[in-house]
């Protein structure tokens, strides 16, 4: 069976690429420390020596649109082109191409359907910064095949938080039962408190530092029960109007497992939103 060698949850900050590559007067004062933190985080994936990456993210109204909106979608294609004109325009993100791990996509779809998730699929998926940001931060050489999994955290009605946790638990079971000798890492990105297009956007910190503190505590201690007891679709409006992206962190807590403390935790308090990085090693930390 395949081995789950790392579980990684992260924020996806589209400004990292530009900040980390800027030079001279264009380089923001927070860039050097940010790069240092990201490179340390990257090392946690490198050490796990993965062969395949399952990438959980959320399309930001790029390919998925309101006339045909899936709740959970799995890509099944040999390649994925990535990043869109408006991401190039606003964030300076480069065009990218990723290889797909089609046999694992196939397995996740078949077994996921049988496990009670009516997963949508796509045979031609152009992916966006929710998946390319962690490639840029964690695997910039972009040399590993992926299985992209998109969740709807964006266009109500949304699945409830518990459903994200359950999907994470199912993804873990599917990876660990995949008849293969590949080493798999599951990487998912979401948000802590975040406001987009509202009065609390682009402040000196994330819109709700107290929520962020609690969220980091839930994630780093694997406190799924405590998190689910405090987070609802309604309550997620309070920390910021784009905070439903936190449900992708909850999905990753489901992958990591109840009570599983993260082996690596780091945060970085930036303007607009806080960065947060977590890694779990299900079989113990690699040497």
């Amino acid at each position, binding site marked *: 069976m395949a081995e789950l060698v790392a579980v990684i949850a992260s924020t996806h900050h589209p400004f990292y690429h530009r900040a980390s590559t800027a030079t001279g007067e264009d380089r923001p004062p927070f860039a050097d420390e940010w790069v240092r933190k990201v490179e340390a985080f990257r090392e946690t994936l490198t050490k796990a020596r993965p062969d395949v990456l399952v990438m959980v993210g959320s399309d*930001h*109204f*790029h390919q998925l*649109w*309101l*006339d*045909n909106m899936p709740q959970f979608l799995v890509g099944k294609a040999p390649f994925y082109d990535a990043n*869109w*004109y*408006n991401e190039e*325009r*606003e964030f300076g993100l480069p065009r990218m191409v990723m290889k797909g791990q089609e046999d694992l996509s196939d397995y996740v779809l078949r077994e996921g359907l049988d496990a009670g998730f009516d997963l949508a699929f796509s045979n031609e998926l152009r992916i966006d910064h929710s998946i390319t940001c962690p490639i840029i931060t964690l695997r910039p050489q972009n040399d590993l095949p992926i299985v992209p999994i998109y969740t709807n955290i*964006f*266009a*109500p*009605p949304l699945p409830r938080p518990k459903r994200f946790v359950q999907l994470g638990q199912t993804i873990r079971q599917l990876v660990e039962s995949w008849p293969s000798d590949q080493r798999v890492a599951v990487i998912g990105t979401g948000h802590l408190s975040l406001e*987009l*297009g*509202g*009065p*609390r*956007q*682009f*402040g000196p910190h994330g819109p709700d530092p107290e929520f962020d503190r609690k969220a980091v505590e839930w994630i780093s201690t694997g406190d799924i029960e405590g998190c689910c007891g405090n987070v609802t679709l309604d309550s997620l*409006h*309070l920390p910021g*109007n*784009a905070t439903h992206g936190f449900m992708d962190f909850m999905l990753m807590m489901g992958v990591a497992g109840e009570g599983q403390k993260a082996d690596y935790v780091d945060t970085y308090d930036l*303007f607009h939103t806080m960065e947060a990085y977590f890694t779990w090693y299900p079989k113990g930390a690699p040497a």
Partner: protein
Amino acid sequence: MSRYLLNKFLFTVDRDPDLVERYRDDPQGTVAWWEANEANRILACHIGESSTWLAFADDERAALAGHDYPALFALGAHPFLTLTLFIAMFERDNSEPLEFQKEYARKLAHMSLPYPDIAT
């Protein structure tokens, strides 16, 4: 009320570089042209298979034609779509980083929780 159509306008303009410029330069004309020619196009379908029933309410048309993003927020347009498109049109006029983004927040400062419903 057609939050869906407001979002469809923002979505289809935002992804087309020429339309972004056209909407910046001539909001009224672009909104009128779009409602007459594009509003009923089903995006994944052949052009002959358009819908027949989509139209803006007067306040929605006025908000788009006036580049009135606080009004779009109040009408429940998806805040991500509005923000992204308006950054594309107006960030270029910044004299310091994030100037437009911060002004955008200030112009919405009168809004309190719960924000307008964005469900479509």
